């Protein structure tokens, strides 16, 4: 579904990604794991065209994203839950969800998708008239995921969904992500919390200082000495 071939990108004189290649197949859940500063967020920003890549290609269902404007990416079925959630704090929960379904093509499905998001996150229905800025961290993450689902995406990009959340909340967020994967969405998730994320996804790539170091099934990575020693402290 999504393919990256030899993607390089950076900010000014700093290069964050070096010839990164990866792919996500329809129906799969894939993680890009790695330490802070490895370039994981940059990778998602390149896919969403928030920053321009320097070289390489990104294709979605065979279509190159190189000439697509940033605000048109979502129309190709790619929705992103950004780092730190980035809700509109003064809009209500429901208005945030409405913004997620802004695309004209999504407006026709507003009612049914709202019901779907509320069935996934009943808490959001209770809080629908509340300002998003007053939600707890876990609730904000639910709202941000719900907002991305409102566009009816084929591919959901999640940027560090566990960042800044209490351990108990992290558990429940990963539980929710597992459910979303079970709903048939294709998911690409970027995460530092390697132990948790590998329990949820099918496959993962390890990104270190802008390069893909290794990749494989979650089970294989959890068993590999490299990951166990460097990241799981075993």
């Amino acid at each position, binding site marked *: 579904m999504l393919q990256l071939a030899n993607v390089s990108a950076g900010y000014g004189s700093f290069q964050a990604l070096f010839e990164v290649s990866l792919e996500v197949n329809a129906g799969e859940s894939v993680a890009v794991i790695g330490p802070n500063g490895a370039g994981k967020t940059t990778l998602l920003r390149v896919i*969403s*065209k*928030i920053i321009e890549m320097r070289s390489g290609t990104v294709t979605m269902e065979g279509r190159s994203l190189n000439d697509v*404007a*940033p*605000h*048109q*990416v*979502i*129309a190709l079925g790619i*929705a*992103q839950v*950004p780092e730190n959630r*980035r809700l*509109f*704090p*003064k*809009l209500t929960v429901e*208005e945030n969800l*409405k*913004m*997620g379904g*802004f*695309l004209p093509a*999504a*407006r026709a499905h507003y009612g049914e998708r709202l019901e779907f998001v509320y069935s996934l996150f009943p808490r959001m229905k209770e809080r629908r008239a509340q300002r998003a800025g007053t939600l707890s961290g876990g609730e904000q993450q639910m709202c941000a995921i719900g907002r*991305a689902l409102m*566009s009816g995406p084929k591919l959901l990009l999640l940027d560090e969904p566990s960042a800044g959340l209490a351990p108990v909340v992290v558990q429940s967020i990963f539980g929710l992500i597992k459910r979303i994967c079970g709903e048939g969405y294709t998911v690409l998730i970027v995460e530092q919390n390697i132990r948790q994320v590998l329990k949820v996804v099918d496959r993962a790539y390890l990104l270190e200082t802008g390069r893909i170091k290794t990749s494989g099934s979650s089970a294989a990575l959890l068993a590999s000495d490299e990951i166990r020693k460097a990241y799981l402290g075993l």
Partner: protein
Amino acid sequence: MQIFDVFLLEAVINGILLGGILALLALGLNLIFGVIDVVWICYAELIMLGMYSVYYLHNVYHWPLALALLACVLLVAALGALLHVLVIRPVLGAEPINQLLVTGGVLFFLQAVATLAFGVEFKNVGVSLPTLQVGGMYLSFARLIAFVVALGGMVAVYLFLKRTYIGTAIRAISQDRGIMPLMGVSANRIFVLTSALGGALAGLAACLLVLQYDIHPAIGLTFGPITFLVCVLGGLGNMVGGFIAAFIFAQFISVGGYFLALEWGYVLAFLFFIGMMFWRPQGLLGGK
């Protein structure tokens, strides 16, 4: 004693009517600032051009008044969009002081062009509306219409911002510009639309003011500074704050002018403004 109260009531009512139009003026400026983060110092000059458009279409080209007024709103809306594309967009990333100076430059440019094109003599559309006499009070019908239409315009804008997708996006973009592309929203397009809406509000104000005032190239100076002060008093960019501040200001002008001489109303209003700037520099409802 009886007479005294009636005149005071008249002053209060006139203040409320004036407040409506000030609130409309402030709404447009606040909308632009709240969304785009740029102050259109030349906002009142758009109103001046709108007033001229009504005069020329109605009195020179003999369009029916209603049609001329409608054309004025559309024309100034287009001017607002044009102002954004030609002047604001290139300086969006510049220092705030430069943005201020650029729109200030547009103010003097438009005044000079208007002087050149329309001359300095006062023009009047010649529509005289009756004065209503209610229980010993004299109320201007033009002001009453202005108040009702201004209020209607504000309600329409409120519903637009609250109920529609574009309106919600306009509110969202002022909170987080950076992630709008992830929503499928082109910030560029929202800015142009907001500028057109701000322009349309200036056009609406022009329609209401042209029924009460003579038109001349410097008429903007009559409304521009006070509009800006109302916005600052309410909290720049805060539309509800601007609404409240407009009515407070208008009462100072109207009731202050009643107790003392007319000019004293403005003196009191500005004194109050200066005092408020010491007490609440961020404005009545401003957060920053």
